[in-house]
């Protein structure tokens, strides 16, 4: 299969569906189904594309004198393939959630789910797949903007409700600020390196000396831009309000897809564009960010009454754990980030993907309106729908990191990396935060099984979604039990 195939499939499908929809030739529901089919095709294509070594251009100047070998824009290595599958899976589940919420009755102030609501995630998926393959700051920036700008639209989708508008405006303004930092940082780095390609930058700055001041500053500004994407302290301020105000499928997309997109570009830049000597610049900064994220995220989540806000703060905490795994550089003559760190990040994200998306799928079904998003609405969920309660319990316990479930493997990996690279302080903070996490995750589980429900009407779940939930519960336990699955996934 040619490279770039998944991106082209997704974009072409989105363009065709958009045109058909504009002519009124296709219903919103069938657009949703076609989007799912397109995602499935893209997943198959990605699985069957061989991993290539060299980054590539798609068209080079025949008259150019300079050689272009090894300085391409787009690479398809094992990491890229793993993250592409990750993003495609996320998008598929998000579209599924959107179809689930389209089936629910429409309130007076809620917009019905339109066809564009299924089409825009395809563009996001294409952008994220490009991010997974970016080998040049140009591609990185344009793809990141494709993702971010589409999210601006999706977050503000319910524009008749005040919370959604607030979420949209907050995401837009803080996102714009983060982009400004990112562009400024890229301008500094590329301006002094004389190239935007990762290979060119590392060739210039992978020396035993420290980075020049300007490049170090540029790198820090780039980290600010990425810090916003992964919602880490102190760039997390948007997260709780945006997670609460956005439609639930989009909240899931932000919390899993957007976060993972932030991490893939973060590890790409630190690994491919900067060598071990740059660790002196980003190491201390990321250590501080990780520590703050762990503490603030997990302790602020304890006091939340809204389940989406709670998951927003807990997501900040998870960013802290993943950053702990990122902090594995600085070995002289080693790579920017050690292989152990890369693997730990990927495994953590994979477990987070399963657990978080399962949780949001249940939330989409149980809380169709903002009023039903309070944690009290989950009291006695076991009596209303045993399957939903079991799925949410499995995902929350997994997020908390308790052994038989997938989340434990992810946390274990992050902790091992922290010990391996001597981040003992961070290890200690993370351990305390993980215990704090137990408190609020298990609080919800307790409410679901041992509290009296506010209302006793059983919740109906459609048969395909029942099957999907069962598969997700199975995966949450199975991947927790045999960790070799992850070794196969990452390779």
């Amino acid at each position, binding site marked *: 299969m040619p490279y770039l195939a998944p991106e082209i499939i997704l974009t072409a499908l989105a363009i065709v569906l958009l045109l058909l929809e504009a002519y009124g030739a296709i219903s919103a529901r069938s657009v949703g189904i076609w989007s799912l089919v397109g995602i499935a095709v893209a997943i198959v294509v990605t699985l069957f594309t061989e991993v290539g070594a060299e980054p590539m251009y798609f*068209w080079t100047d025949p008259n150019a004198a300079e050689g272009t070998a090894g300085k391409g824009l787009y690479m398809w290595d094992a990491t890229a393939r793993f993250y592409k599958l990750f993003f495609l899976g996320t998008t598929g589940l998000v579209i599924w959630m959107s179809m689930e919420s389209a089936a629910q009755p429409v309130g007076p102030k809620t917009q019905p789910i339109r066809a564009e609501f299924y089409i825009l995630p395809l563009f996001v998926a294409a952008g994220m797949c490009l991010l997974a393959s970016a080998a040049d700051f140009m591609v990185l920036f344009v793809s990141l903007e494709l993702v971010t700008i589409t999210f601006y639209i999706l977050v503000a989708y319910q524009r008749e409700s005040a919370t959604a508008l607030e979420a949209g405006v907050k995401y837009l303004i803080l996102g714009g600020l983060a982009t400004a930092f990112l562009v400024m940082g890229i301008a500094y780095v590329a301006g002094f390196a004389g190239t935007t390609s990762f290979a060119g930058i590392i060739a210039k700055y992978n020396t035993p000396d420290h980075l020049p001041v300007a490049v170090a500053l540029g790198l820090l500004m780039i980290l600010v831009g990425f810090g916003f994407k992964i919602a880490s302290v102190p760039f997390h301020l948007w997260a709780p309000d945006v997670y609460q105000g956005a439609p639930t499928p989009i909240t899931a997309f932000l919390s899993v897809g957007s976060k993972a997109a932030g991490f893939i570009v973060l590890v790409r830049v630190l690994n491919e564009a900067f060598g071990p000597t740059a660790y002196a610049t980003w190491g201390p900064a990321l250590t501080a960010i990780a520590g703050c994220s762990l503490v603030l995220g997990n302790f602020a989540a304890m006091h939340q009454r809204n389940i989406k806000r709670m998951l927003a703060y807990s997501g900040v905490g998870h960013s802290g754990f993943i950053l702990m795994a990122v902090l594995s550089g600085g070995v002289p003559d080693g790579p920017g980030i050690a292989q152990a760190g890369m693997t730990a990040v990927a495994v953590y994200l994979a477990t987070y993907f399963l657990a978080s998306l399962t949780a949001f799928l249940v939330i989409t079904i149980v809380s169709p309106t903002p009023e039903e998003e309070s944690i009290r609405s989950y009291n006695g969920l076991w009596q209303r729908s045993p399957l939903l309660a079991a799925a949410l319990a499995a995902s929350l316990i997994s997020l908390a990191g308790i052994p038989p479930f997938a989340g434990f493997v992810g946390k274990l990996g992050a902790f091992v990396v922290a010990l391996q690279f001597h981040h003992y302080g961070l290890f200690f903070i993370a351990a305390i935060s993980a215990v704090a996490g137990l408190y609020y995750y298990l609080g919800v589980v307790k409410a679901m099984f041992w509290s009296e429900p506010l209302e006793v009407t059983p919740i109906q779940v459609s048969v395909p979604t029942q099957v999907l939930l069962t598969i997700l519960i199975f995966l949450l336990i199975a991947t927790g039990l045999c960790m070799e699955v992850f070794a196969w996934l990452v390779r």
Partner: protein
Amino acid sequence: METDAYIANYGTIALFIGVAVLFAVIPLMIAAIIAPRKPGRVKGDTYECGLESKGDAWVQFHAQYYHYALAFVIFDVEALFLFPWAVAFTNLGPGPFLAICAFVLILAESLVYLWLKGVLDIK
């Protein structure tokens, strides 16, 4: 660049700008000094091509015009991408030609989409 050549190049432009500014400013100054002053309500009104003016010019616009402005920005940016292509395309191969075709087609789609959705209608 040599200083003399520099003056020869830009000096003419500077002279033009200077004369143009003076040409506008001097009559205004003369008018301000020698014209008699009799301000009135009709005189101070907004000039609307000879019609009698109605209300203030600084009114709240209808939000519909805003869609026009947004669509304009999208196609303005498109036009800017076409410009460097037009200048460079003689020594580019067939790949860039296909790329610009795809680019224009995608933008054409956004025009069709905006049209069908009624952004271009003023109700």
